[in-house]
C-alpha cells in the first residue's frame, strides 16, 4: 500500500464513517436515545426502533467474520482490561447519553451543520486533554494502544 499516501487513505476512512453514521441516523439525538431505550418511549421494540442497534450489532458480526477470514494469521492488537476500563467506559456512557454523540458522531453532527455540536466537540477535546494530564500524574497508561 505504498501507492496511495497514508493521509489520503486515512481521510477516505473518515469520510466513509461520517457518511454512513449520518445516513443511518446516528447523528440524530432522538434516534440514538431510541436505540439506548430499545424503543421503550417510541412504541416499543420493533425493527424500526431497534434499527441503529441492529446496524451496530450487524457491523460487529461482519467485522468479526472479516477478521476471521482476512486477518487470521495477523497479530491482534491486544486490548486488555486495565484501571481505566470500567471507570472510563461509565463516564463515556454518561456523556454520550447527554450529548447524544460519541467522539465521531459529534464531529459528523458539526459537519451536517448542527452547530451546537461544536460545544460537544470542544467538550470532548477538553475532556481528553484533562484526562491525559490526570492519568499522567497517576501513572496510568492511556491512549497507548488504540488509534
Amino acid at each position, binding site marked *: 500500500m505504498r501507492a496511495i499516501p497514508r493521509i489520503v487513505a486515512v481521510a477516505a476512512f473518515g469520510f466513509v464513517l461520517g457518511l454512513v453514521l*449520518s445516513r443511518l441516523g446516528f447523528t440524530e439525538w432522538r434516534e440514538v436515545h431510541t436505540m439506548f431505550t430499545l424503543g*421503550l418511549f417510541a412504541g416499543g421494540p420493533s425493527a424500526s426502533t431497534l434499527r441503529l442497534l441492529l446496524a451496530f450489532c450487524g457491523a460487529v458480526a461482519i467485522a468479526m467474520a472479516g477478521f476471521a477470514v482476512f486477518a487470521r494469521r495477523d497479530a491482534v492488537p491486544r486490548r486488555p482490561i486495565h484501571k*481505566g476500563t470500567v471507570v472510563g467506559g461509565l463516564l463515556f456512557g454518561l456523556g454520550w*447519553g447527554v450529548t447524544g454523540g460519541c467522539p465521531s458522531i459529534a464531529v459528523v453532527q458539526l459537519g451536517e451543520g448542527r452547530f*451546537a455540536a461544536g460545544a460537544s466537540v470542544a467538550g470532548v477535546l477538553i475532556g481528553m486533554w484533562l484526562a491525559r494530564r490526570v492519568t499522567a500524574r497517576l501513572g496510568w497508561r492511556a491512549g497507548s494502544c488504540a488509534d
Partner: protein
Amino acid sequence: MSGYWPWWAGALGLGILPIAYWLVLRRSFGVSGLMGRLVSVREEFAVLRDNAAAPKSQEDLEALLDAATREQFGSLPPGDVPLPVAVPRGRALGARLGILEAAAFVIAMAGGGLVSRLYAGHAPGPWMGEAFRRAFGSGALALGALVLGGALVGAGTTLADGCSTGHGLTGSARLQPGSLVATACFMAAAMGVSLLIGWRVGL
C-alpha cells in the same frame, strides 16, 4: 433527516471499515485515539520532527550503525554477523498515525456529514432536535450540558483507551476483554441516562 439507510446497509458499511482499515493501514480502527492526537500538539510535533530526522532507508540505517560501532570499538566485526531476528507470522502492526493523519481523518469525517446533508437536501437545524430541547432547553444550559457531556465523553474514552469504534466495533469484533468490558460499561451508563431522560421528559 429522514430517508435513512436500512440497518443492513449500515451494518455492511460500518462492519467493512475496521477490516479495510486494518488491511490498508495495519492499525486498529478507533476514532478517540486519533482525536486524542489533536490535544497533544507539542508531543505530536516532536514525533514529526524525530521522524524527519530518522534515517530514510535500510542503507542509511546500516551506515549509521556502522559509524556508531566504529566509534565505540574502533573497528567493525569481521564479515556479516547475522542478527537473530524473529520474523512475525502474518501481517504486523503498521506505523503509528500522527497528528496530520488524525486531522485529515476528523475533517473528512465532518465532510461525510456535510455530503450526507447535501444528499438529504434539507438542513437539520443548528440544535439537536425537539427531544433534546425538552430535556435541556436551547440556551446556556443546553450548551453547558453539551460541553460537560462532551468532556465526560473525552475523559471517559481516554481513560478506557477507546470509544464506540475502537472498543465497540473493532475491539469487540476481535473479542478483546478490555473492549467487551468497556462496551458493556458505556452502553449500560448511556442506557441509564437515556431511561432517566425518557422517564422525566419523554423522548
